């Protein structure tokens, strides 16, 4: 049978543990970032006709690229996050090769943001884009993780020399 002394001693331990858990949870909730709706997530991109085939246009306001990727099935516009899915570096578009080439760790993506090589675990993240009248609109809060390795729907050989100086 539990003595009164043991009961109180265990009560202190349980109470302290509950208090520590409550404090941790409160701290987590307090420091957790609030929703960032205060900054506009809607970026107006202009007419789809502005984006020529096989080009990538950087939109600094949304930290994204709008690309017009083509394959035998047709053309498709993408809004791609500038962040490399590997470690968050901005991935520059190399106009000579027609590919995205990350200077941090050498990940390479095709014009649709599909992974080609390098340590990135997936393709570049895609930002939701809709047509509002005649204008394209991107919502930077609506992000879909990039396609897995092997998607290759828009893969093509590099147009020319790469920008990373790889052989």
């Amino acid at each position: 049978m539990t003595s009164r002394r043991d009961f109180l001693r265990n009560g202190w331990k349980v109470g302290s543990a509950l208090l520590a858990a409550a404090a941790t949870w409160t701290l987590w909730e307090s420091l957790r970032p609030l929703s960032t709706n205060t900054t506009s997530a809607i970026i107006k991109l202009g007419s789809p006709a502005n984006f020529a085939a096989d080009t990538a246009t950087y939109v600094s306001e949304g930290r994204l690229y709008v690309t017009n990727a083509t394959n035998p099935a047709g053309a498709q516009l993408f809004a791609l996050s500038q962040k490399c899915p590997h470690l968050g570096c901005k991935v520059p578009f190399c106009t000579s090769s027609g590919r995205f080439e990350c200077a941090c760790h050498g990940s390479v993506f095709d014009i649709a943001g599909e992974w080609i090589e390098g340590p990135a675990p997936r393709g570049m993240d895609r930002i939701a884009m809709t047509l509002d009248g005649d204008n394209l609109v991107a919502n930077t809060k609506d992000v879909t993780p990039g396609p897995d390795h092997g998607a290759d729907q828009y893969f093509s050989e590099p147009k020319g020399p790469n920008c990373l100086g790889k052989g």
Partner: protein
Amino acid sequence: MTDVTTTEESPTGDDGAESRDALEPTAAYGHDGGISARVQRTDAWRSVFRHPTNDTPRGRALQSFSNFFLHLYPVKIPARVLKLRYSFRLGFISAVLFGILTATGIYLMFFYTPAVGSAYGDMQQIKTGVGFGELVRNVHRWSAHLMVLVVFLHLVRVFYAGAYKKPREFNWVIGVILLLLTLGLSFTGYLLPWDQLSYWAVTVGTDLVHYVPLIGNSLQSLLIGGDQIGQPTLLRFYALHVAVLPATVVLALSVHIWRVRKDGFAVQRSSVGTFSEEATTVPGTGPASAPVELYGGRTRVLGVVDRESVTAADRPVDDTVFTWPHLIVRHVVVALGVATVVLAIGVAAVAPLRGLANPNLTPEPAKAPWYFSGLQELLAHFDPVIAGILIPTAAVIALLLLPYIDRNPATEARHRKVAIVIFSGLLAIAVVLTVIGTFFRGPGWEFIPPWQHWYVEL
């Protein structure tokens, strides 16, 4: 006890002032008529310094007893502690660097606002418009790098000396925590200049967190205060850098030093031997030189034990020296040496400050701070979950549990070959990865030797 109550007539006729030092009645403040001696005889002086600084055994002990700062030290220490090669003073040097970082950091705080709009401008102002601003910033930066290096070397030395073994297991754990806190301090400070170097190094560093299974994204968001590095990140890193982490370091360091003292300082390396019942004395039965015969005079080897695990009563008592002045003087010399070195580096080398942080332009290459570049190198070869999470987590857990896994009590290298080979192998891998990541990588993480192009920035 008679000496406690004995008073001595004042030779100076100063109302028996000398007799107030009841524990050492023969102690005398200066008897001459000089200004210094007169000041030292005043009540005001004695209210602060309660004992005269007599160069006698008891006088030295009293100085330690009655001085808050000297209380960090024991009154007497083993004589072996005085030898430089015993610890290379690496722990003390780490503490000195922490002190230098605290002093220079407080000075810099007067001129810095942790706001995205002004942080970079403040850095430029510190460099150009604040008295000794650039020098203080240089010293702060180089001391931070040096502290990471010295704390790491301290850990390595402690391992090779076998000083993590009983009874020092928990102090080793605190030491590992202090290493992690040092890395945290350096990393959080890295962002504060808000330049291209700091912005992208911290972007790369914090992006690792999102690979943590299940809670990675929440954890990263908690750390940087949003979905990308910005004002909340700067404020959080600042709070961590100037308050949370230093306070935690002070707490952990206090326990660490206190335990070093309680555990008899550095391990006595030459003490490993076979202790047998033949040489063991039963407390209270005689001096250490008089062996006690047990079990009819037969001796049995019980095992190989570290002499430190033998109780203090069994140790010889004549191998100690007074902390003051023997150790204190050495520490003062080392502290001055460290200050001189970081000052010289601060004068000779300017801490880097690149252009204003630009989220739309990643510099080539974007490297994490040098102490994380080994991890970055690993990430180039393995899946991020393995290289960014599993391996570092396993390394930290292995370090924390080391004294509880390695139960071999021997401290000499020849008795612990397995542990030393494993540790040395892992250490070599970590060093090689760090050297490659720091010195041999260029844009696109291509292998570029430093003599072809220097892509190193600290």
